């Protein structure tokens, strides 16, 4: 048993080393290696950690493993070590990051093949995986913060991957800066945690003794600040506007970073800190409200977007909103469950969208697509699977996770459930809108493009098929109790969440009959939404589309939030910058300084005639002064 544990410990380190080595190798030696080798190396650098993650996940059981590498910032009053940690929650995250990450790496080999920055791309991708893994296997908040900022950096580098175009660069910069705003919240939370617990180590902070002695007001602020950090990384109100712009990056990046993994970091962080949040019910309430509001806001925008990736981006924000809502009502394992299934079907949808874009030679406007189902059959099929999964139709994965969340919302407050259902209906509606507009009907693009359309190579379709299978069966890890089975995932995660759930103390499980009624309502609603979508976008396409554009401008324009932020924050800052410099700095402060200077030089006019320059005068005065000092010294003695 002991040796087993030791070996598992070492795996924690090895998991990190492979992607880091991959990053260095394709980054530094990229020019001298062939594309095949880089592709294989980079994918292997993620696959090996996946194998290790499987080993950890299988063996972790109820326990936890940790590995201290070295003292990072260490002196008498403060000791922060660089140490790693894994329990079942970590193991699950490791599986998602490395598993989905590996598939996306493989897909990228074909997708990025003709790009001149091929090696740079894989270098950044490995770097991202490295930081994401640090984030999930950290054993204290500061090491987590390394991963937290590190994924932000990789995201910045990858959004702006095609840096010739300043639109991409602006998107990258926006993502980094908005994340930094959240990061300041996170950082302040760490300060407060350290000040309160004198440690940033999870084991110390979450230890019941420490927690019991802290007053709730402090915990409230810690949790609020952590949540602010999470809104940045996980694109929630008010810091979500960077994510749609982040679609400027290559599509595999959108799939890996801006859908499946990085954006879930906020969910993971809050789930990891669940015990703290259990002591801050007000913050949990806020999280639930912000989550559901974000879910609805983003869904309403997604309906009216015409860029295939933008629709998926808003859908991601919306789904993250569900996860936050779940966290907010204390359904921690429900949130993680949805995180996992979402990683499958959203990565699938993005990669399939990439396949569509690939097939059309770069076209992303869904108004110029249509009828693709005849030409790219595999992509069509997997995309449809993704749509069914995200819409929550049984027995696909999204059904189980989403209904678990909806049920938890109902248990907390039926109003939340109603809002959740509204979001779910919108989700089904816009996802099938996307499906019908892209794959059904007639092709609306130019004839030149029509000739180009081709199915993607196997290297792309195989990962798609694997993800499609996962999207179908992924929900079975969390079969609900009304199906007469043990909830595998909930049991698996129970060592992590048990304590927090006990504190929150809501054992008011709905009776199975009521739960079934809720599910029936949501499934029927979703089916109606799909039929509605079919009626509008397939059967009756042209007429409605034109009317939509004028009446629902507010959704199409995304509630003008970007414009409002521009007006409230960006413009005033730039104005301040100019004003500070040209008026306050040059006219006022420097004006006073110069004024004093002129005054002094006028009154000292006589000296000017005696001395021929300031320097000489100064040196002379200094020598004189020093002599005078010695004289004074001598006299006093």
């Amino acid at each position, binding site marked *: 048993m002991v040796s087993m544990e030791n070996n598992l410990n070492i795996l924690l380190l090895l998991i990190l080393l492979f992607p880091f080595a991959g990053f260095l190798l394709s980054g530094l030696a990229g020019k001298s290696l062939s594309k095949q080798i880089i592709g294989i190396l980079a994918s292997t650098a993620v696959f090996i950690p996946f194998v290790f993650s499987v080993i950890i996940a299988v063996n972790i059981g109820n326990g936890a493993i940790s590995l201290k590498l*070295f*003292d*990072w*910032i*260490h*002196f*008498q*009053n*403060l000791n922060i070590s660089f140490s790693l940690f894994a329990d079942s929650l970590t193991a699950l995250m490791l599986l998602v990051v490395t598993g989905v990450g590996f598939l996306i790496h493989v897909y990228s080999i074909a997708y990025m093949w003709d790009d001149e920055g091929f090696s740079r791309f894989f270098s950044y991708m490995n770097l991202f995986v490295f930081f994401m893994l640090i984030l999930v296997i950290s054993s204290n908040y*500061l090491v987590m913060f*390394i991963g937290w*900022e*590190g994924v932000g*950096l990789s995201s*910045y580098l990858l959004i*702006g991957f095609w*840096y*010739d*175009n*300043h639109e991409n*660069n602006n998107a990258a*910069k926006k993502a*980094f*800066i908005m994340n*930094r*705003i959240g*990061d*300041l919240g996170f*950082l*302040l939370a*760490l*300060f*407060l945690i*350290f*000040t309160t617990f004198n440690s940033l180590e999870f084991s110390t902070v979450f230890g019941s003794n420490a927690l019991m002695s802290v007053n709730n007001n402090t915990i409230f602020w810690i949790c609020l600040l952590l949540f602010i950090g999470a809104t940045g990384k996980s694109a929630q109100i008010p810091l979500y506007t960077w994510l749609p712009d982040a679609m400027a990056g290559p599509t595999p990046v959108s799939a890996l970073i801006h859908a499946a993994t990085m954006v879930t970091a906020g969910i993971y962080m809050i789930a990891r800190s669940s015990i703290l949040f259990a002591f801050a019910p007000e913050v949990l309430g806020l999280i639930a409200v912000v989550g559901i509001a974000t879910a609805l806001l983003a869904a309403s925008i997604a309906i009216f977007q015409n860029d295939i990736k933008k629709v998926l981006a808003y859908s991601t924000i919306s789904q993250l909103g569900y996860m936050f809502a779940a966290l907010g009502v204390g359904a921690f394992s429900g949130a993680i469950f949805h995180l996992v299934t979402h990683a499958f079907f959203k990565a699938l949808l993005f990669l399939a969208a990439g396949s569509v874009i690939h097939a059309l030679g770069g076209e992303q406007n869904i108004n110029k697509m249509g009828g693709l189902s005849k030409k790219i059959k595999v992509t069509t099929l997997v995309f449809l699977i993704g749509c069914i999964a995200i819409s929550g139709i049984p027995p696909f994965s999204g059904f189980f996770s989403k209904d678990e969340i909806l049920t938890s919302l109902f248990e907390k407050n039926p109003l939340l459930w109603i809002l959740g259902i509204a979001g779910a209906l919108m989700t089904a509606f816009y996802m099938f809108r996307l499906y019908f507009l892209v794959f059904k009907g007639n092709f609306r693009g130019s004839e030149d493009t029509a000739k180009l359309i081709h199915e993607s190579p196997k290297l792309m379709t195989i990962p798609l098929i694997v993800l499609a299978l996962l999207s179908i069966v992924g929900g079975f890890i969390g079969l609900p109790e009304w199906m007469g089975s043990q909830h595998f995932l909930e049991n698996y995660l129970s060592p992590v969440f048990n304590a927090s759930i006990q504190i929150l103390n809501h054992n008011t499980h709905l009776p199975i009959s009521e739960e079934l009624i809720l599910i029936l309502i949501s499934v029927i609603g979703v089916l109606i939404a799909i039929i509605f979508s079919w009626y509008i976008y397939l059967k009756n396409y042209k007429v409605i589309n034109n009317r939509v554009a004028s009446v629902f401008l507010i959704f199409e324009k995304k509630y003008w939030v970007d414009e409002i932020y521009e007006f409230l924050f960006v413009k005033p*800052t*730039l104005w*301040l*910058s*100019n004003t*500070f*410099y040209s008026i*306050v*700095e040059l006219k006022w*402060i*420097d004006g006073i*300084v*110069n004024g004093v*200077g002129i005054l002094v030089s006028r009154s000292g006019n006589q000296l000017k005639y005696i001395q021929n320059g*300031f*320097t000489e005068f*100064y*040196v002379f005065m*200094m020598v004189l002064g*020093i002599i005078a*000092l010695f004289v*004074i*010294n001598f006299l*006093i*003695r």
Partner: protein
Amino acid sequence: MLAFFTLGLPLVASIIVLFLKNKQTIRNISFIFSAIIFVSTLFYFPVFHNSTSTLPVKIIENMLYFSMDGLSYLMLLLTSFAGLLIVSASFIENHERSHIYYSLLFLAIFALTGVFTTNNALMFYIYWELALIPVYFICAYWGSEGREKITIKFFIYTLFGSLLMLAALIYLYVKTPYPHSFNFEAIYQLVLTETEQSWIFWAFFIAFAVKIPIFPFHTWQPDTYTVAPMSGTMLLAGIMLKMGVYGMIRLMLPITPLAIVQWGTFASILAVIGIIYASIIAIRQTDIKRLFAFSSMAHVGLLAVAVLTLNKIALQGAVIQMLSHGVNVIGLFFVAEIFMDRMGTRNIANMGGVAKIAPRFALFFMIILLASIALPLTNGFVGEFLMLLGIFQSNVLIAVLAGTGIIFGAVYMLWLYQKSMYGKQNENITSFPDLKLREILLFTSLVIIILWMGLIPSPLLNIAEPAINEILKTF
């Protein structure tokens, strides 16, 4: 013997170089000298590492009042390393009368070494002023257009500050019991009333605030950093401004504890205003050196706040950040010089698309930029994290306001990087040769230090700790 290499060699080098003729010889000899100085300083490392003694180590007994505690040693380490970097970087500028140039460089290093190691207030003042002279001449003779007026302003401004310090020091001297003494130890033992302390506090504070610089005593700084030659800017920003912070720690904390309790918050607010003010101004600067100048001002404002909080964690952070900032700012101004060298302009509007034609430069620039915006695992993070944590513990609001600096830092630095390195190649750029071997070596050594300090800062913290404990004993 070691003491001679560390303390005396810069002066010897300064004199020897003056008599050399051949440009190449001068460069090589200067490099060798600065390398010896740095290596000899490194030899002290074991003396201070894990040393439990809080007492300063006397370098030269009964002579010239030199002694070192961990703090002095770290400053010396910075001075000698930064000196080595500056001397090595100087090859990129083609100096006329280079024997004088290098001689002045060594003179500055000599004076700075003195400032950081003396334990006598008079010597402190003399070295402090002595450091100014070579930098003044370097800026005045090798600077760019408009330097005359600007360097004189810089000179008078800092002179004005130092005179206040001198007045305070003389007052303290007179207060010491007979026979009067300028020794730090004697001055530390003075019992001063709160009023006396307040006067001395402000005299010191203004002197140091000008040097660092702290808002609103900063207006000499952006101009001077901009027109000074690269090495002058590096000297000023990399090492000389730390004299101010060092002075605050060495003189203000032990001598005016009551006044700091009374006035510290007020002074911190000035510094915080400076952080935000300089950060916001940096956003719209179009001259790359001026942008770095304002960025530097924002960073050192945080240093001042950290020192004034009297919090041990913040002070430890400040010490680390003094070293980090020294390294990073030298890197940044070297980046600026690369642009000057390749394009002959500092105007960001004329840049663009450099990443594609100079990928190695792009990589190094990015790493130094990340260190400057305090990304974890770089040196910049350790210092800023500790400082903000310490400040947070003593005043949450100030920490939050000062923390906005990390957001603004990302704004202007990423903007700069985007405009200069990304996008389409600017039509003004006909060619932009990627880094040469010497430049790569210089950048590589910077990057090694950046990552080493970011990953293993504990030995440095360990060295600083006893000295900080000793200084905070008063409170």
